[in-house]
């Protein structure tokens, strides 16, 4: 918008200067006498901004030499040169609307024959009778429910010509959170007002706005998110506690809240750490839903005890719980060998059922260790003739946390 108006104004200036030039050229013929009497301008008091332009009349010195008399005006917006024109038989300086639309101090210098004959200034004041809009800005747009955080509302009321209003104009800044609506009035300083809105201690959404007389701002909102988490508790939940390597155990946190009881935002990451006596490490991540975190883990394949603790890194943690897993078998069946196929099994589980497919079985024959997995309760290893000539071998079988030593005879 600004760009556009600049464009239009510059166009207007160019057009007006051309017009002025044209007029002055036309007037040239009418000016017959050239007198070099010093001219002075009428006193220009403070003016209100206008989009109609301003005329400054000449107090003394009626005859003009257009080529040598001109007025230089300078404001924060621009510096322009204005040449006099004849209106109702009096010479006047016309300041174009593009210039008078902007409030601020205007310095002007009257030049005659290249010399400054008069210098002064006047102010263009905002048009407080015709209010335009209130621009508001709010940031940050999300804050945390604690005593440290706040958001800031900035409000800039303007008149219809987009000038900021004079200092000390009272603007009402309003905010709503839950059932509470707060309104405070603030005087404009340097064109705007601002207010820090400290964070409520509950999560939710805060709406803000500002008004001045009959004009209103947009609604801007800030989300209030929970503060950092407080410590919490966890518990384990599983269908059974057998170390069968084929069951999901889930760990559940209590509802994780902040200091003020606000539930964590959905998606907050909680990490569950498990360790056992052998130093093995588990690490499961869960993001909260309504403050609860659920982590799932696979049962181990060998009996063990887990120490479980969950944490929101660097912020909060849970108690430590222990989870025991019992063995599903008491002993490994003796391996059998048929046609160079070494079979371990059938391995049965806690109900006497076959163990699930995919249980790791490792067999050490001599120096070589081979890993296999169960299928239909059995793990089979093919012993190639070139690797295992006929003879007797010591076999160590490891599975489900157990170990057995036997001897096998290969024909």
């Amino acid at each position: 918008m600004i760009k556009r108006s600049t464009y239009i104004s510059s166009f207007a200036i160019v057009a007006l200067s051309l017009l002025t030039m044209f007029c002055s050229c036309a007037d040239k013929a009418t000016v017959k006498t050239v007198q070099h009497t010093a001219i002075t301008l009428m006193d220009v008091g403070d003016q209100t901004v206008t989009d109609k332009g301003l005329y400054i009349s000449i107090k003394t010195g009626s005859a003009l030499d257009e080529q040598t008399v001109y007025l230089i005006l300078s404001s924060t917006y621009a510096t322009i040169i204005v040449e006099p024109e004849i209106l109702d038989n009096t010479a006047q300086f016309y300041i174009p609307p593009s210039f008078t639309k902007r409030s601020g101090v205007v310095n002007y210098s009257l030049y005659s024959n290249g010399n400054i004959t008069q210098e002064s200034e006047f102010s263009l004041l905002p048009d407080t009778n015709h209010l335009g809009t209130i621009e508001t800005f709010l940031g940050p747009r999300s804050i945390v429910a604690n005593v440290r955080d706040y958001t800031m509302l900035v409000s800039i009321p303007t008149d219809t010509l987009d000038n900021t209003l004079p200092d000390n104009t009272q603007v009402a800044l309003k905010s709503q959170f839950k059932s509470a609506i707060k309104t405070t009035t603030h005087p404009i300083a340097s064109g705007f007002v601002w207010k820090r809105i400290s964070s409520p201690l509950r999560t939710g959404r805060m709406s803000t706005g500002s008004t001045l007389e009959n004009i209103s701002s947009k609604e801007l909102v800030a989300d209030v998110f929970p503060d950092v988490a407080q410590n919490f508790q966890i518990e384990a939940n599983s269908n059974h506690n057998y170390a069968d390597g084929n069951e999901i155990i889930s760990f559940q946190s209590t509802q994780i809240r902040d200091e003020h009881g606000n539930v964590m935002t959905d998606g907050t990451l909680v990490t569950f750490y498990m360790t056992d006596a052998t130093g093995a490490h588990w690490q499961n991540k869960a993001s909260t839903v309504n403050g609860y975190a659920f982590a799932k883990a696979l049962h181990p394949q060998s009996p063990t005890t887990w120490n479980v603790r969950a944490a929101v890194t660097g912020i909060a943690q849970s108690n430590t719980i222990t989870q025991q897993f019992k063995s599903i078998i008491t002993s490994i069946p003796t391996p059998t060998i048929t046609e160079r196929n070494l079979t371990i099994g059938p391995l049965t589980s806690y109900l006497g059922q076959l163990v699930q497919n995919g249980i790791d079985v490792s067999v050490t024959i001599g120096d070589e260790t081979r890993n296999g997995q169960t299928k239909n309760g059995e793990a089979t290893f093919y012993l190639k003739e070139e690797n295992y000539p006929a003879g007797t071998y010591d076999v160590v079988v490891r599975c489900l946390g157990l170990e057995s030593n036997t001897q096998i005879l290969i024909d």
Partner: protein
Amino acid sequence: MQSKTNKYLVSAVLLGMIFHGTAMFFTVERTYDALIHLFFANHYATSWFEPWSYSWYTGFTVMGYPPLVHQTIGALSYIGGLKFGMFTVALTGVVLFITGVYRFTQVLIPNKKVAGYAALMAVFSSSFVETLHIFGQLPSIIGISVLMHCLPEIYLWVKTARKRHLFKALALLSVTVTSHHVTPIFGMIFFIFPLLGMVVMDAAREKVNSTKEVTVIAFAKAVWTHLRRIVIFGACSLVLIVGCIFPYWVNTKNNPITQVPIPHGSRDNFLEVLSSGLVFFVIPWGLLMFLLPYFFYRYYSKRLLFFGISFTLLLILGTGGTTPVPLAMLGENAFNILTLDRFTLWASIMALPVFGEFCYRFVEGDYKDYLQEKWGTLVHRASGAFLSFLFIFIAIFTITLGKFRPSQPDAIKMTPIVNFLNEDEHYKWRYLPLGFGDQMAWLSAQTKATTVDGDYHSARRLPELTTRAVERLENSKYRGIEGIGSLQQFLTVPEKYHLKYVFSNDKFYDPLLYFAGWHRLSLLENGIMVWEKAGIAPLPSVLPREDAPLVLKLMWGIIPFTTVIIAFLLHLGSLWTRSFKRKKELPLYFAFAPIYKRAPSLLYRASVVWTIILLIVIAFGGYLFYVKNTTQLSANNVVTAYYDAVDFKEFERAHSYLDPDSDKKLSQFMLEISVSDGLLSSYAKLDSLYIDIIPKTDTTALGIVDATWITPLKEIETHDELQLLKKRSKWYIVPKTVDPDIPPEQLLIQSGTRYYNHGKRAVTSEQTFHEDVLKQPVVEVLSARLVQLDTTYAIVGEIQNVDNIPADISVTGAIYNEDNEELARFNAKDVVKHKLLPKETTLYRINFEGIAWASATEEKPTTYAPDTFTEIDLTDIPVNFEVQVSANVATTDLYQAVDLSKVQQEENTLKGFLFNTSIEEATIPQLLIGYYNEDKELLWVESRYIDESVRQQRKRPFSEVLYSDILPTEVASGLETASVNGLPNQSISDKVVPQRNTSGSEQSFIPIKNMPYAYITITTNNYVGNPK
């Protein structure tokens, strides 16, 4: 004498228009170059006088390629669009070529029938077919065709000294110059010089009574008398070559080609790289190979002696790297810049007149009588039929080569991409197409959006591109480390190039994009995946450019068309007389028509011997091809074929190599394939294969296979032992058993949090409203250390997203010397988790990469290593550093799909398995491993990719060797210089988590024994290839 219409020429032109005119609609768009010319044409169509194009390489000048053909297509595009222009120009090229060969032949062998035959042969010349339908080199074709039209005029000027001919010749030469710069320069040497020699020879012959009397002295005398004309012509043509494309030469001088040469198949040793040999030697020569003895016999006759020399040179130069001669002749620089296939093209074109003559003599001339007498009529006719069948077959084979061995990806519908770029001002950022082939030029021609890549490599400007032998980023996977290395730098620091969108037509690049911090935006309806990088600033509205002087711009825009108009006006008269036969006299050179005597029997014998040699070579080649490619002939072949089939995902073929008596049915095999995914199964390209066959019995063997696979992230080496057996004289592979693991649950139920960001809530093309701009998530740098490892520096540390919304982070590190002068700046590439859930923590490492091989003398690695990086050349010793994190709201790729299970140290390896509890398959799991000292201070961070995917509720064992090299030493550490979203890190720390405690830290540390470090932590990350 009332001359008759040459019916051979008329049929040749008609045949050519039908043959090429029909075929080109199916071929030209799929060629290497045609779409590039189309892009240039589009440039001229939109801004005729402005040579600067912003579309490619962050801006380049089109003055690097002669403009005539492009401008013509551009001008024609106003009538019927760009492609209409292209096809029109191509068809014009066909007609010009056929008539050009006709006119050229007339000069060389002044016999209208011979010329007619040559024109007919030109239609099916395999080198011409290849140049037009496979390479799409339109300017080159136009250039050489016009040059051939120019030759008779040059002859007549030197012979008669009539200025009319000089002007006509020069006019045509300038058309050649403005359509292709290389053609007139080399055309001067290989076509015009021998022609001048021939004119002088003719002149010398006129002075004496028989050819035998033309001695060196007589020749020298003739040279003397014609010297003035030759010099005038030479000087004028030099002026034209420089003057007509003067802006081109100025540009060449201002932007000399200093880039690293790009490998081109035509420079290969054709015996080593058989595919190059086929494309750049066998196909262009085709049937002509058999007639080489005849060509030499004819060209080394006295009149054509100079053409003989030229023909020999071209033939040798066209052999590329097969013989050392071309390199020695051209010098290293020219050898590496020029593509040598053009020499073969010219040689085969030069062979056409003599080939036409042979055909004439074979069909109706003296050879017919000779051979019929020797072989009998039947054999003569049969061999004629066979030869013509073979000739046309080779042409058809060549024209369809692109269909059977596609050099380009399938045609991509560009409209959805163009729409995407126009939508919501996406063209304000740069984009990068991946896997588009030369179709990227067609995309560029349709959009005003710009890309960092480009398809005219002589114009590359970014040092990241010019220092490498990378033709395009788009096909970087074919260029090994140099390609992927270049691409990685663009993807890691995209803000430098305002690169926000990647259009991926090749899922090979997807993992790289993901781990470099990009995310998928949408799948367009044409199957192209759009990737986006958050937090990239749009292009400034004013882009830098190199302005050319107005004079050059005007010359560039006006001269090319002017040359055509002048040439046309000058030739209007002769066109009229030639077409409507007002004039009866024949051109001067018809005085030198050859008289055909009985062919020397030596030639006959030489030809027979040569034919036999060629046939033996072909048969031997065919035999080798059979032995190497018959998939089940040997144990080695079946293993190679199996890996080849797996590499190209031809699973039915792979299954056919498995033991048919095993219980592995195709459906079972396909099922097993369908459940295997991951870096190795889905994103790897077979690089090398070492097969060691250990025979056991006659029918069984053990195949030990060491394969190297290239993936966008790392190189994977696999070791396999395959049981092989022979059944019914065919070798088979014994299939392997499948993992029997059964997941615990059948139906998985998961609840979770998902995110969506509207972007703009109001339907408006205006700037996003203040209230629609999301706050940048607040993240906190937990630690940062500048460490030194030998001569390289890196920043390592940890970052936590302390906000309540997910963050997409980009971590930039900078290092400074003692005077606080910046030495280097780079982003964390893949050793960081870019998408963080609220309160999630990640390790990071920033390496400082330089522009790879910036100095030409630096030795380039010969092997491919995707994870290699080029260390930056630091000017001073870094003592201080800075870490800047910028975060944006992330809404996708926040899956936590893999968890660590039972991780244990076993000596120097870390063993355990990954378990997937989620409902998404973790296609490529990544482990970020942090190494800590006794005081739990972070020393080093590493990234490890797991080769295979982890399916839902399945476990994937892993075994990673722990870091065992010397640990880096600390140079500086601390968080004083860390900043997040432009704010000091400390202020965030004080405000958001002021009472940070050790929660979780004790549990996350895994103690490590007998290593130079005491603890490790692991952060898991995973790429989900197909999100549900």
